[in-house]
């Protein structure tokens, strides 16, 4: 019969129309400004800089190694390395970014800066309501605007942040053990001519405990 196919299709739309009144699963949209869907854990949009502790400037994990600046496909990162050094979380003196700008009107949220960062210093945010009246200055974020505490990272990507913290803690333990061993060795050497210093054995014993998840890529400048 001519028109049977159309009627069958109309029955389908009628079923969906009526169904949306009884089945919550058929309601696929939300009323945005009032209702919000929480962003997923993996969601990413623009990068931010992680800092530890209370002071953002002192706690920045970034050491201005400029790998992200080099790898960024649209070249939206601009870094100026500091002249002096300040101690990082393991106590080692490191450079810090005197200037760190990201132009988020250029950024394409590809996450490559996060992947290549050996210091867990740059991560992806989930903040998406970024409209501003100033088209140029408002979208060029400097390091003060980019810096966000580690707690924020824990809030938006809990599992990933816990993993990163465990890894960093392991590295800190390793660095502490190494420093301790070095100090002991120096002390032993200075004290007397002891036949076998304890240093070389102490270091591997110290890091075996807390470092099962070390990344293979980063042999660069941590220890």
């Amino acid at each position, binding site marked *: 019969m001519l028109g049977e196919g159309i009627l069958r299709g109309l029955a389908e739309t009628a079923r969906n129309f009526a169904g949306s009144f009884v089945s919550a699963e058929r309601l696929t949209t939300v009323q945005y400004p009032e209702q919000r869907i929480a962003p*997923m854990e*993996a969601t990413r949009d623009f990068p931010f800089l992680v800092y530890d502790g209370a002071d953002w400037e002192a706690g920045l994990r970034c050491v201005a190694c400029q790998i992200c600046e080099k*790898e960024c*496909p649209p070249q939206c990162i601009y870094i100026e390395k500091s002249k002096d050094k300040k101690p990082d979380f393991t106590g080692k003196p490191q450079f810090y970014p005197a200037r760190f700008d990201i132009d988020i009107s250029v950024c394409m949220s590809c996450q*490559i800066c996060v*992947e290549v960062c050996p210091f867990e210093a740059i991560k*992806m945010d989930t903040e998406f309501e970024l409209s501003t009246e100033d088209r140029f200055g408002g979208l060029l974020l400097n390091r003060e605007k980019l810096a966000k505490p580690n707690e924020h990272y824990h809030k938006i990507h809990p599992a990933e942040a816990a993993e990163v913290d465990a890894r960093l803690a392991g590295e800190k333990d390793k660095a502490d053990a190494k420093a301790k061993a070095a100090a002991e060795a120096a002390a032993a050497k200075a004290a007397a001519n002891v036949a076998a210093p304890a240093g070389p054995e102490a270091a591997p014993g110290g890091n075996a405990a807390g470092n099962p998840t070390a990344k293979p890529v980063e042999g660069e400048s941590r220890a």
Partner: protein
Amino acid sequence: MTGLISPEPSELKVEDSQVRKSGPGAPSRMSVEDSQVSESRPGAPSLAERPEGWNRPPVMVPDGEGELLEVAMGPHHPSTHGVFRMDVALDGERVIRLKPVFGYLHRNHEKLAEGMSYLGSMPYTDRLDYICSLTNNWAYALAVEKLTGQEVPERAEYLRVILGELTRVQNHASSIGFLTQEMGATGTPLMYAFKAREKILDLFEGLTGSRMMCNYMRFGGCRVDASAAWLDAARKVVAGLPGFADEFERLLRTNEILMARTQGVGILRPELAVNAGVTGPMLRASGVNYDIRKVDGYGVYNRFKFRVPLGDHWDVYDRYMIRMLEMRESIKILEQALKEIQPGPVMSPTARIRGFRPKPGEAYGRIEAPKGELGFYLISNGGPNPYRYRVRPPSLINLTILEDMCLRQNVADVVLIFGSVDIVLGEVDR
């Protein structure tokens, strides 16, 4: 009424010497009566002869029944899926010439890629065919893996298959939705398609962090592992997909309007399809059994049971049906892959994502993307970035036979035929 000529002087056919002879003095507008084409045609006209003032001669002899008209459909036309122009010559309602004009969305992708590291091009491949970013990632990763001789762990291969087939389902669903939209079904089938697509995009976001610009695959594996919760969510979505396909078919398959508009329209003969290098659902709708998943067996596709649907009428309706059937085959692959996936690493332990220099050589990685054969051809000269980087885009090559499909059809059907090619301008123009 007078026939209007597209005012801008566009490219000339090389063999058309008359165009140059007529020179700039040729009138930019003319009426059909002046040209006397209608009267002179019924004899034995040569096709090289073009109506005065036309940019190019028609490739078909007008039958003299209708008014001759040269129109430019696009670049800002709602049916063109972006910025794309069709220079159409009409004899009444009949198309007697059609020239696709593209390049409006050119972004210099290939040359940019030659200036940056292998990793740096990966997010840009998302922006080629932005409906199916994961298959673009896959094809590029495959090419680089071939170039460097990297192995991919089994779990990563399964994840790639799962994501690739999810991409195919959502691409075909939305492609059918757009096709019906162009037929005049304003929105309803498209919204049905997007309802299923939305669930798949949510899966993509849960795993890769982004709905469309996934940037997920890496040379030697995938960027992050899928959690058990994600795999369960994927199983749930895949379990709902056959229901969606049934619903979508009930809605459209026997619809008389769809059948009347698409059956016998835009016929693409298999010989022409093969000669023109057409691939993907377009080629299979013309009855040629060629699916790179079967032919090449890349990834782990040889482990899955699925069939390749083929068309036997070679028209727009066949292309619609092929996409429906391919969705069902993809769902079968997804069910098998989600059942068989084993725990394990997702990145090869020797893989390096940055700072590597492949040995001098060349590689061509190709996959069966939802739109056809997507290939990346790379030449390395031993440096950190490719010496030559070339994309073989299925959309562009499938577009080249647009004129052959549209000749003798009505102008309203041009929109449909164009929609049935299923292109994304980001990939056509790169």
